[in-house]
């Protein structure tokens, strides 16, 4: 029974991580920017939601405003930071350092406004328990899995069925040709970072509902998401999502045999295995 509980816990955590991985992968494969500040957008989403929820805003309003604020922040970072650096012909290393700087600023501003301590969400339904087949789950965990699967499906549909989604894939595939066929790559980069920020807002709200908020909590999920993106195959939405879930499940199941502090080691073990035997990733070139 403990194994089943750990498996379900892994699936729940993996669902949330899967969305972080999808969003990070979309941004990286299109813009080629290692958008570390994405962890800041993830964290900010939780605090925006907390501010609204603690003032008694209805859940649907909290969700809508948080997603909109995350999109605006992502678009602002791309338009005002990355695009400006690109116009100055900055190297990828300079852009990475700028992104790290943006992350540090966001984390510290959040810590200064809210406090660096853990904050609990004032949402009573979130922690109510349900027992399904002997496995204990909170409503937040159930919602996390449902929202995650829905967002994954919507992302796949958007990128393969809508003309904007196809244009984003075109820019990712050949930015030079996109420039000379009027696909406006710079505009597409702003849109894709905004979409990625909207996706990451969901785990940004749902994970703290379960575990509480902390200003510096976004880096570990981003690290796991990065590994999922590489092991899943850069550019593959499904690859990132599946590998993120796989990592979380293995981290949880590893508790049966080794202490919990080794779970990050499990993540890197999976990463090394992929680098050795399938360096292009599990789902390479299958977006």
């Amino acid at each position, binding site marked *: 029974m403990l194994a089943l509980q750990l498996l379900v816990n892994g699936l729940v955590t993996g669902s949330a991580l899967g969305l972080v991985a999808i969003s990070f992968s979309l941004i990286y494969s299109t813009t080629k920017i290692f958008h570390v500040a994405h962890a800041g957008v993830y964290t900010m989403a939780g605090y925006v939601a907390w501010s609204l929820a603690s003032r008694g805003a209805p859940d649907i309003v909290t969700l809508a405003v948080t997603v909109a604020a995350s999109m605006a922040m992502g678009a602002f970072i791309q338009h005002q930071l990355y695009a400006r650096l690109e116009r100055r012909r900055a190297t990828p290393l300079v852009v990475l350092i700028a992104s790290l700087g943006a992350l540090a600023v966001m984390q510290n501003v959040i810590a200064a406004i809210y406090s660096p301590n853990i904050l609990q969400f004032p949402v009573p339904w979130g922690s109510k328990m349900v027992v399904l087949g002997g496995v204990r789950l909170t409503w937040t965990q159930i919602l996390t899995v449902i929202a995650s699967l829905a967002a994954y499906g919507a992302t796949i549909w958007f990128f393969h069925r809508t*003309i904007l989604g*196809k244009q984003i*894939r*075109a820019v990712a595939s*050949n930015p030079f040709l996109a420039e*000379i066929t009027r696909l406006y790559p710079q505009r597409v980069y702003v849109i894709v970072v905004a979409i990625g920020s909207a996706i990451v807002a969901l785990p940004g709200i749902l994970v703290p509902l379960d575990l509480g908020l902390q200003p510096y909590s976004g880096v570990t999920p981003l690290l796991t998401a990065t590994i999922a993106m590489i092991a899943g195959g850069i550019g593959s939405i499904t690859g990132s999502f599946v590998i993120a879930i796989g990592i979380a499940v293995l981290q949880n199941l590893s508790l049966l045999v080794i202490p919990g502090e080794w779970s990050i080691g499990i993540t890197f073990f999976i990463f090394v295995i992929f680098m050795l035997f399938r360096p292009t990733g599990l789902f390479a070139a299958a977006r």
Partner: protein
Amino acid sequence: MLLELSGLAAGYGPKTVVSGVSFALEPGQILAFLGHNGAGKTTTLRSIMGLLPLRAGEVRFDGQVLQRMSVADRVAMGLRLLPEGRGIFPDLSVAENIDVVAARNIGADAMFRVPDVYKLFPVLAERPGIRAGSLSGGQQQMLAMSLAILGKPRCLLLDEPSIGLAPNLVERMFQQVREVCKSHAMTAVLVEQNVAAAMKIADRVIIMNNGQIVFDGLPDEARASNFWHYF
């Protein structure tokens, strides 16, 4: 005149690659723009498109000075570039390639719509769902040509379109280029290493050497001259 270059100079970093490049082309005229590797042909095409800033001179298209125009505005005016070896979106299907470019470039006055390019290159219509990157070299070039002409092209800048193609395919593709240009009064600047094939369809020949024009005349005049020592 449709496309006019006067005293164009351009380059990369501290190095000026081309200088004093001047020519003017009428609608429907095909120019074979030849020269050895590094002579400055691609640099000239990139400057015309606005992908590289001019260091001196001027480019006019349909009487308008282009210097302050963005790449997208030049494309909207009808200047189209078929880039060397990079003319498709390899991760998208054939139909997706055509659809995304059509969505941005087909207006009410379009000369080439989606059915027109499928009619021009029927092999693309036979495999719309195939990933473009897995097409053969010839089919990829047909797709690249389709993307370049969707909408209302008035001047095609073709950068080494025959690279990687079998000789019989090159001849057929060049004939298609000539037919399309002549039937739609479309100007073409053809940068090409396959000198003989390019001269067969050209109305005029310009040869570049070390960033400057060293020959400008008719194909017959080029053949009669001792131009091979520039290659």
